[in-house]
């Protein structure tokens, strides 16, 4: 450890730490654009200039490594003056199109002007005209007028993805970011470019013009789309300015987790936004009376009645459930106690999405978040044999719709037709819906709290990141109600 003084405060920092980080650890934030903790300092924005005793001029905090006894001042008159001047330079050639900029409200340039600028505009000259809507691949758009040339994007593609699709071309005030020979960005981690752009220079068509940043409610969760378990932030709007009671998830962004994903998530995980908002099962549908409004609690009484109608000793053979590895560790424990121990079922199966290709960075082959949790809950996951199922089962509970990843719709239809009672618990609408006696609308993982165990065995608990629509229910609630209704003691929610 190294001892230094920052703004009169004694600070201790690990050797090799830069002044900017050391100050941050001490609660002193030094404004910066180009510095990002994932890359080597580049020092090009010049906003983090600070006074270091003994040096003849200001130096960039991002590129200065702490030394024992160093005395740093971050808010003296010369420092504040330098900050103001840098902001004035950047804003001189900035289009100031904040009213139509997606980044407005979460833009570092706006925030820093508000905190460190507040100067009158002196720029009387013609601003550089540049291209404002360049498609650079993967739905990303580059606005060269907004770009402040911090080169975070260029460095990210060189140092993190190693794909290097972006470079800086030309020089001086004509310098601009661009792709080489118009070869577009093409990697599974392109969305992070939008996250790390400190201004609105790189925007995502998936988010562009859809809402304003200040309406977004940002909550963390764990990405459910593979077994890596990356930290993500779900950004949603509930109510105003949407309709009363309406909720939409506008964006999923990378959360920070040094133990798992650092600062990045893959585009596949980011696209999980659609899983939350699109194709959702909105209400309980009973095939006998599809139009009638029915609460899940009431509908669940039918499920219990059908299970009860099978005599206890016969249940092992005649009642079956199909679970999945998207269920939380807590839900799996409940399922274990309810189905395996309480009801003594033999026929407990799993149907998960088929594995995909791992990409060598974060995305794993398993396209479910909790395969380790399934094993830890004591299950031996296997697919059902449809013929065997059709031959003997009278009551079937299906959680999720991934049977169709393994069997044709026709084969599933044929088998289910032979089963007298089948209930579907699913977050999304699909071809299985019409085959079920009752379809229950389930919450997606962003709407749940719980725990996943990732590919490396890391246990990660998360809270609810988006409010589910009224009537949408988690497996946890379904299983808890079933257990209570069937008079089974499944204990408290301890999963350990």
């Amino acid at each position, binding site marked *: 450890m190294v001892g230094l003084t920052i703004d009169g405060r004694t600070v201790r920092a690990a050797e090799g730490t830069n002044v900017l980080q050391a100050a941050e650890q001490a609660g002193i934030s030094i404004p910066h654009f180009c510095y990002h903790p994932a890359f080597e*300092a*580049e*020092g*090009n*924005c*010049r*906003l983090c*200039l600070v006074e270091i005793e003994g040096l*003849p*001029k*200001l130096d*960039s905090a991002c*590129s200065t490594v702490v030394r024992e006894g160093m005395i740093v001042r971050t808010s003296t008159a010369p420092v504040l003056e*330098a900050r103001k*001047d*840098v902001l*004035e*330079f*950047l804003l*001189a*050639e900035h289009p100031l199109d904040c009213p139509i900029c997606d980044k407005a409200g979460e833009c570092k340039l706006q925030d820093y002007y508000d905190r460190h600028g507040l100067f009158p505009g*002196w*720029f*009387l*000259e*013609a601003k*550089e005209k540049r291209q404002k809507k360049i498609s650079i691949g993967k739905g990303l758009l580059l606005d060269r007028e907004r770009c*402040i*040339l911090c080169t975070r994007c260029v460095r990210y593609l060189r140092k993190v993805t190693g794909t290097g699709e972006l*470079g*800086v071309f*030309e*020089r*001086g*005030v*004509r*310098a601009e970011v661009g792709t080489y020979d118009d070869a577009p960005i093409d990697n599974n981690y392109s969305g992070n470019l939008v996250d790390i752009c400190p201004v609105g220079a790189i925007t995502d068509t998936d988010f562009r013009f859809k809402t304003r940043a200040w309406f977004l409610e940002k909550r963390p969760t764990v990405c459910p789309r593979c077994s890596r378990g990356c930290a993500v932030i779900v950004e949603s709007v509930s109510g105003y300015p949407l309709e009363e009671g309406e909720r939409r998830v506008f964006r999923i962004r990378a959360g920070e987790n040094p133990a798992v994903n650092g600062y990045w998530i893959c585009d596949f995980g980011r696209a999980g936004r659609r899983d939350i908002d699109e194709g959702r099962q909105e209400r309980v549908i009973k095939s006998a009376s599809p139009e009638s409004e029915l609460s899940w609690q009431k509908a669940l009484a039918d499920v219990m009645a059908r299970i009860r109608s099978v005599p206890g000793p016969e249940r092992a053979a005649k009642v079956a459930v199909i679970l999945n590895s998207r269920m939380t560790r807590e839900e799996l424990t409940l399922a274990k106690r309810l189905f395996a121990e309480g009801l003594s079922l033999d026929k407990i199966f799993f149907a998960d999405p088929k594995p995909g290709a791992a990409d060598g960075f974060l995305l794993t082959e398993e396209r479910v978040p909790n395969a380790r949790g399934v094993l830890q809950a004591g299950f031996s996951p296997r697919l059902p044999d449809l013929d065997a199922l059709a031959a003997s089962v009278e009551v079937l509970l299906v959680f999720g719709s991934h049977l169709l990843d393994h069997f044709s719709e026709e084969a599933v239809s044929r088998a289910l037709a032979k089963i007298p009672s089948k209930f579907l618990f699913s977050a999304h609408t699909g071809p299985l819906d019409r085959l079920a006696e009752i379809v229950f609308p389930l919450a997606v993982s962003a709407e749940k709290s719980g725990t996943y165990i990732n590919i490396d065995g890391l246990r990660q608990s998360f809270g609810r990141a988006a409010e589910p629509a009224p009537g949408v229910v988690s497996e946890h609630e379904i299983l808890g109600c079933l257990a209570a209704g069937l008079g089974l003691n499944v204990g408290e929610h301890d999963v350990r």
Partner: protein
Amino acid sequence: MSEDAVRLIPADEGSWRLEAYLRRGGYEAARKAVMSMAPADVITEVRKAGLRGRGGAGFPAGLKWSFVPQGGAGPKYLCVNADEGEPGTFKDRAILVRNPHQLIEGMTIAAFGVGIRKAFIYVRGEYGRIAGRLREAIAEAEDEGFLGGGIFGSGFDLEVIVHLGAGAYICGEETALLESIEGRRGQPRLKPPFPAVVGLFRAPTAINNVETLANVPLIIGRGADWFLGRGLPKDGGTRLFGVSGAVRRPGLYELPMGTQLRTIIEIHAGGPPEGVAIKAVIPGGLSAPALRPDELDVTMDFDALARAGSMLGSAGIIVIGDKIPILDVLKVMARFYAHESCGQCTPCRIGTSWIHKTVMRIGEGQGRASDLDHILRLADGMKGRTLCPMGDAAALPVQALVTKFRDELEKAVAR
């Protein structure tokens, strides 16, 4: 004038040929260093000679070499800065054209002293044809065993590679030069680490200007004391002063360090032509703040010019006659820096362009009373705040012109 043997720009017939150089006593100093001196003694001798860098900053060359770690198994490099881009400067060009072997000999001595086996000469793109002569000289030296493997039959090797730039002023900045040799966009690196420790291909690297290295054979051949005697006590040797602009005999003058600026202009370059008076003098390449006619009694050495609020820089003296509007000078200056800023860091990228746009607007007759103060403020916003020295190089001369010729510029603004 000194005899050809001790001139950086000799006048003898075919002076660039190896045979001519050998007639002048060439390669004897390198032979002496390689065959009879310890590497550390070479560095000591150059330090004693007070040889300060001729590229512009005036950093003591021997001291710079001493920062390169001694020994070690990894590679170390020597880079010669022949990216002579400072407006008003044409001295390295003359050495490359008239005396390339003296540069090569200086490189050999430097490489031997620092323990380097591979050197690059970074020649500005505009000197493409000159590079051909340089390559010929390298081949001549290799054929004679003065370069390449086993120099003078010793165990010392040196490979020299000529690398052409592509016409960017910023590549004369030593770390941008390294980036350019490595094949990347030529833009400066953060310092520290300094190139002596982490330089070309991340290896320890010595970087010296052409004129600096061309002086090294004189120091080793004739001794530090002889060299000091030709200049000043802490600033040894002669200097190539390039004089251009409003003088009768523009050209390159090799004179002792510390010669009076007025002497160079009035005596050597013949003073301004008939009917022309001197309005301003830029003493060390465009980046050196201009001097007024009453400030010309300054000696041309690093310390004296620094005290006078300017710098010796590349010693390119630009004499501006009274027929030239200062606004025109300012326009050329502003355009140059705006055009040559690499664009990497904010204050230089925007500052140079903003100043240029403002000056051009004044030139179009759209000036405002506040413009001159504003230009000074913009220059303040760049000074000492940029990633590399170019911010100062662009801000200081602009501030000097606006401050020293304020009356004339105010009239131009009000026009």
